[in-house]
C-alpha cells in the first residue's frame, strides 16, 4: 500500500468552503471502507502523472466517476453526500509495471439505473477517462452484485437453449464467415452459404461490415442465404443457420431486417458491437420476444481493449454483454491470428459460460462474480484457425464454443464443401478421442492423421495448413503469475 501525504478528513465547514480541495479530502479515498454486498465494484489500472500522489489519483477516479467535479460545490450539502460518493478503498502497485497501480473503487447500487448498460457505463467509463492528472486509465474488472444483475434480462437464449433448439450436443459448433467479405452478389453469396453448410458446418456468418451495400442489398442477401440454409438442412437432416447481420443506421432499420429474418425462418440474427449498448439491449429484448439466437460480432473492441495501460479490458465488455443480453460473443482463439493470451482468454470464457466465476488473478479475474440466473453466452472463436489445430482448440476452449473457420473452410484446395467436411471430421474425431480418454494435447496430430485416412478433404487440409501458426507475444497479458510455494 502506498502511503504518501496523509491527509486528515475535514470538518464540514472546511470541507465545503468554496475553492479547490484534494479529492482525498473530499471523502473519495476511504481505505477503511468495507464494500457491501450490493455495491458495484471496479478495479482500475491507474498511471498517475509523475507529480501526482497515487492515492489522490485513485480518489480522483472515484470522484470523477461518481459525484465530484473539480471544485467544491455547496449543493453537495443538499444530498446525503457520502452515500452517493464512490469510494476508493484499496490501492496496490501493479506487479512488474512501475508507476501503475490497481485502484479498487466501490459504488453504491443507488447510483445506477436498473437494467441499463448505458447508465452504468456513462459513470464508470465516462469523463474520468480523459482526466488530465492521469497519464492512462484502464478498467480491468468489475463485480456486479446479484441485486443489480437481476435487473437485466441477460442472453435471450443461452447455451442450453441454443443447443436444444439446434438439436446439437456434446461438441463445439462449427461455423465460417463468408469470404470475400465484400463484393459478392446475393446469388453468389448464397452459394458459399450452401456449400459450407451442406459440407458439415452448423453456421455460416455475415462479416461485420456486410449490411446493405450497392453490390448486395440486405433483402437479396437474406433470401439467398435462407435458400442455402434450408437446402443444407434438407441434405443433412440437421438444423443449421446463417448469422444474418441486421446492423443498420437506425433501430427502425434493424427491426425491419430482423423481422424479415424471422419471417424467413432464420434461427439466428447478428449485430455488431458498434451499434452501441442501448441498441444491443433493444435487440436482446427483440430476440427474446421472437425466439431468436442473437450473435454479437465485437467490431471495434480492439480500439480500447488491447493496450494494457489504457482502455477497458475485454473481460469487462464480455460481462456487460452478458448483462445486456447476447447469445454469442467473439472471445478469442488463443491460437489464431488475433490477440489472445491463453490466461486472459480463459478468464473471458469463464465470464461467458460459468454460473459462478471465482476470483482468479492468474486469469485476470479480480473479483468473485456470481451470475445469479442469467443465461450463459456461447463464446465464438474466429480468426486464423484451421483443422490442424483442433486438439489445441478443444483443449483451450472446451466444448461450449463456436469454432469458426472462414479461410480454413473457403480456402480449402478441394472446395468449400470439402473444407467444411474436413473441419467436421477433425472435430468429431477429436471429441471422440478425448472422450475415450486419449491425451489429445500430445496425440492430437496423430489422431487427425488417422481420421484423415478415411477423409481425403481432411488430408488435404492438413497438408495445406498444418504448419501455419501465429506465434506473437500478446500485448494484453495478465499481471499475476503463479508463485511456486515451498511445501
Amino acid at each position, binding site marked *: 500500500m502506498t502511503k504518501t501525504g496523509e491527509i486528515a478528513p475535514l470538518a464540514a465547514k472546511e470541507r465545503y468552503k468554496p475553492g479547490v480541495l484534494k479529492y482525498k479530502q473530499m471523502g473519495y479515498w476511504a481505505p477503511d471502507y468495507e464494500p457491501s454486498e450490493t455495491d458495484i465494484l471496479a478495479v482500475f489500472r491507474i498511471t498517475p502523472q509523475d507529480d501526482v500522489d497515487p492515492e489522490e489519483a485513485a480518489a480522483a477516479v472515484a470522484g470523477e466517476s461518481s459525484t465530484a467535479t473539480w471544485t467544491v460545490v455547496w449543493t453537495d450539502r443538499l444530498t446525503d453526500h457520502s452515500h452517493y460518493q464512490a469510494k476508493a478503498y484499496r490501492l496496490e502497485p501493479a506487479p512488474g509495471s512501475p508507476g501503475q497501480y490497481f485502484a479498487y473503487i466501490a459504488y453504491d447500487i443507488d447510483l445506477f439505473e436498473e437494467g441499463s448498460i448505458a447508465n452504468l457505463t456513462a459513470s464508470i467509463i465516462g469523463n474520468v477517462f480523459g482526466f488530465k492528472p492521469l497519464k492512462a486509465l484502464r478498467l480491468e474488472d468489475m463485480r456486479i452484485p446479484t441485486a443489480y444483475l437481476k435487473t437485466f434480462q441477460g442472453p435471450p437464449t443461452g447455451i*442450453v437453449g441454443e*443447443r436444444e433448439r439446434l438439436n446439437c450436443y456434446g461438441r463445439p459448433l462449427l461455423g465460417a464467415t463468408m469470404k470475400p467479405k465484400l463484393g459478392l452478389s446475393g446469388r453468389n453469396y448464397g452459394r458459399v452459404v450452401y456449400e459450407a453448410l451442406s459440407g458439415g458446418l452448423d453456421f455460416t456468418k455475415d462479416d461485420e461490415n456486410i449490411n446493405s451495400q450497392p453490390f448486395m442489398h440486405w433483402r437479396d442477401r437474406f433470401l439467398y442465404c*435462407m435458400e442455402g440454409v434450408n437446402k443444407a438442412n434438407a441434405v443433412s437432416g440437421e*438444423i443449421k443457420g446463417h448469422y444474418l447481420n441486421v446492423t443498420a443506421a437506425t433501430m427502425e432499420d434493424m427491426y425491419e431486417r430482423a423481422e424479415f429474418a424471422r419471417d424467413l425462418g432464420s434461427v439466428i440474427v447478428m449485430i455488431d458491437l458498434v451499434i452501441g449498448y442501448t441498441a444491443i439491449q433493444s435487440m436482446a429484448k427483440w430476440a427474446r420476444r421472437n425466439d431468436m439466437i442473437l450473435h454479437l460480432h465485437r467490431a471495434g473492441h480492439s480500439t480500447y481493449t488491447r493496450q494494457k495501460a489504457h482502455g477497458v479490458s475485454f473481460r469487462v465488455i464480455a460481462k456487460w454483454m452478458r448483462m445486456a443480453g447476447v447469445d454469442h460473443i467473439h472471445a478469442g482463439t488463443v491460437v489464431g491470428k488475433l490477440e489472445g493470451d491463453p490466461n486472459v482468454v480463459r478468464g473471458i470464457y469463464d465470464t461467458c459460460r460459468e454460473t459462478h466465476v471465482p476470483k482468479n488473478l492468474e486469469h485476470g479475474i479480480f473479483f468473485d462474480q456470481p451470475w445469479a440466473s442469467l443465461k450463459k453466452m456461447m463464446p465464438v472463436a474466429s480468426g486464423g484457425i484451421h483443422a490442424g489445430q483442433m486438439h489445441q482448440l478443444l483443449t483451450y476452449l472446451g466444448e461450449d464454443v463456436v469454432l469458426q473457420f472462414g479461410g480454413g473452410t473457403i480456402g480449402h484446395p478441394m472446395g468449400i464443401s470439402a473444407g467444411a467436411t474436413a473441419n*467436421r471430421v477433425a472435430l468429431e474425431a477429436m471429441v471422440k478421442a478425448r472422450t475415450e480418454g486419449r491425451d489429445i494435447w500430445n496425440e492430437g496430430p496423430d489422431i487427425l492423421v488417422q481420421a484423415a485416412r478415411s477423409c481425403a478433404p481432411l488430408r488435404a487440409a492438413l497438408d495445406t495448413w498444418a504448419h501455419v501458426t501465429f506465434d506473437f507475444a500478446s500485448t494484453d497479458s495478465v499481471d499475476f503469475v503463479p508463485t511456486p510455494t515451498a511445501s
Partner: protein
Amino acid sequence: MRLTQGQFSFLPDLTDPEIAAQCAYALDQGWSMAVEFTDDPHPRNVYWEMWGAPMFDLKDPAGVVIEVNACREAQPRCYVRLLAFDASKGFETLRMSFIVHRPPDEPGFELIRADGPGRNIGYTLRPYAADAPPGRRYGPGRTP
C-alpha cells in the same frame, strides 16, 4: 443420404466397444444414459420414442450397450440414438447425443418451397420416409 445429426455422424459407425467408451466417460461425469428410437428423423422431431426411462442408476457401460443392442434388435428399421443427461445446475440438459443405429436405407428429405409475396419463400422439410405411416417406414412395405 446419411442423416448427420448427433456427435459422430461424420465418422465411421461406432463399434460396441467404442460406444462403451463414450458411455464410460458420460457415467464418470455423473450423467445418465438413455436410449431412444424413431422412424421420423425430422430435425425438429424432439421426442423420439424412449426405450424405457433414462437409466439414472445404471453405472456400468456394458449395461448401456446391452440396452442399445436390445433396442436395435427390436427396432432394426429405426434410428437409435444414445443420450447422456446432465442434471446439474446450469445444464439440466443433454450433454451427449449420437446415433448408434440406422435403418438400412436413408432416403432423406424433400425441401418444399411455398412461394409468397415479394419473393418470400416458406420452407418445409419433409422426410421421404414419412410418406408411409409410422411402423411401415424404412423397409419392406414402405410406399414409394
